[in-house]
């Protein structure tokens, strides 16, 4: 119905760029490759765990499967904003056989981003460490979007500990 009207989207699809899921943390837009996303769910009951890093929020029950969840905002050191927490979504990702939930403020859209749109050489100052950021996507009518590598955001040790916990939980 509105296919012709949504020019950029349609062109994005036609141009066959890589697909990214865009989400927001505070005022900033972030995007992760769509293949890293297994599922997106709404707010769920999180059971907190003792003696874990601050960004490790707890466990959720997703259709009988126990999944560890991280607060990306805490992890990336972005200041916490109460008002934005309402519509929080959890992006479920499968990373080297580890299924993990990442809590974001809001999932905005799914977009195809051409390589031409991505700026790899980053001189832009950002609070987030350069290693997670793969680049910045530019849009004609949208703010800049930071491209994240979720696997890098959660480093190996962390992932191991996460896995351990997850396993422990699963065994229990």
């Amino acid at each position: 119905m509105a296919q012709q009207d949504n020019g950029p989207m349609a062109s994005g699809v036609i141009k066959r760029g890589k697909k990214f899921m865009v989400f927001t943390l505070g005022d900033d837009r972030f995007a992760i490759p769509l293949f890293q996303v297994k599922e997106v769910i709404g707010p769920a009951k999180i059971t907190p765990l003792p003696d874990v890093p601050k960004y490790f929020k707890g466990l959720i029950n997703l259709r009988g499967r126990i999944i560890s969840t991280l607060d990306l905002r805490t992890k990336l050191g972005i200041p916490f904003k109460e008002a934005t927490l309402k519509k929080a979504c959890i992006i479920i990702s499968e990373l080297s056989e580890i299924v993990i939930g990442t809590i974001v403020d809001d999932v905005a859209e799914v977009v195809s981003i051409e390589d031409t749109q991505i700026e790899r050489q980053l001189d832009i100052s950002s609070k987030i460490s350069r290693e997670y950021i793969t680049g910045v996507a530019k849009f004609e009518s949208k703010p800049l979007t930071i491209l994240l590598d979720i696997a890098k955001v959660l480093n190996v040790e962390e992932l191991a500990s996460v896995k351990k916990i997850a396993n422990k939980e699963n065994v229990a």
Partner: protein
Amino acid sequence: MKLKQWFSGLRGRLLILVLIPVAALTIVAWIGVKGLIELDQSLDNAGLVRAPKIMSMGEMDSAHNAVIRWLWASKDSDSPTLRKKFLERARGESSSFEKSREHYRTLHHNEKEEANFKIIDEQWNKARGPINEAIELLEKNNKHDDEAARTIMVTAIRSAFEPMEETFESSLQVTTELIKTSLQVEGDRSDQLRSLAISMSIAGGIFVLLFGFFTAARLAKLLGSIAQKIGDSSSQVASAAHQVSASAQQLASGASEQASAVEETSASLEEITGMVENTTRNAETGLQLVEGVKTASERGNQAMTNLINAMGEVLASNKKIEQLVKVIDEIGEKTAIIDEIVFQTKLLSFNASVEAERAGEHGRGFAVVAQEVGNLAQMSGKAALEISGIVKSSIKEAQEIAGNNRSKVEKGNEHVREAGDILKEILKSAETVCAGSRQILSASKEQAAGIKQINTAIDNINKATQETASTSEESASAGEELSGQSHHLAKLVEDLNTVISGHERTSSDDIVLEKRPQTIPHNNLVRLKPVQKAPVHFKKAVGDESESHGQSVGNSEWEKL
């Protein structure tokens, strides 16, 4: 009481004056009669007691002498007839003695007489035997017997008779003494009676004289004082008459003043009547105005009530607005549900996109659909957000409007209430004013009636004033009359004094009486209007007259009383 009445006053005094000499006379007469009776008694005593005693005693004396004498005579006579005759005589004397003795015995005696009579009686009893014996002997007519008789006569009879002789003598002496003393006593008594009667008469006379003099003096004094009092009274009456005349004069002037005052009052009353009429008119006008105010305020009150009702309706509609707000709120809630659905749809579209990506080349069409769904969800979300915003602002505005309305209505209600209270007060005041006006009206009407009454009263006062004027005239003439009467009274007093003192009054008094007023000038007594000068003149005339009269009477005439 009656007796007391009889003896009180002049009548009593006169009665006493008559009664005292009568009583004295009665006493004197009684004493005299008593003395006469006593005298009579003592004379009777002398006649009936003493005389028979003396007679009997004398008879006895002569009898016993005669017995002896006849005895001796018979002895001495030789002739038997003579002798017999003499003896008979002796016997006769003897019986005569006894007769006298018996008679004497019956009479009243004193002790001495009794003693003497006892001696005589005894001696006679002693002598009787010898006497009879001598008589018997002498009857025999012989010498021997004669001698014996002589012996008896010499011895027995003589011895018996001798004490008798002495006794007779002493008895006579006693009786004579008694009569003598009795006469002496009677004489003394009659002397006493005489002197008593004389002294009583003199005393009575003196007493009557003194009492009469005293009573006459008292009477004269009494009448004099009465006359004086009458005189005083007449002078007082004269002065009273003068006062009456003066009062009448004052009354007349007062009446004229009163008349002018009444006239002034009448004029003032007319003015007052005008004022009261004005007041009545004003009060009526005021009443009408106030009635108008009352109805206006009542209408205002009604309007206020309507306004209050309207306010209430506004308040009710405000409540409806509030209800509307609730409805809008509900819409907001429903919008939230839509929001949730949109969110879920979005998530669903993302998940669909993820699945399409997994499907690779096969999922490309599905990805487009998912994209479309996501777009729709986003649009829905935007719309829902807009609706939510609109709802929120609507609610806010509605609430604001309702709140404003409420507060305004509340304020309005307050104002309306205040206005209502004010109107009520106005009504109340209007009613009070109305009542006041009515009272003023009724008071004015009453005043009008009162003025009418005052008018009639003033008419009455006018009449009364006229009557007073005529009455004062009458009083003046009455005063004159009184003056004349007091003069007449003075004359009567003079007459009375003449009667009391028994001689004509001195000429000075008469002059005084003749100087009596030429009567009060009747003409200048009472005139209603020109009252200023006459009374002074009148007063002087009356004053002089009464003064001279009073003085003359007081000083000369009554002083003598």
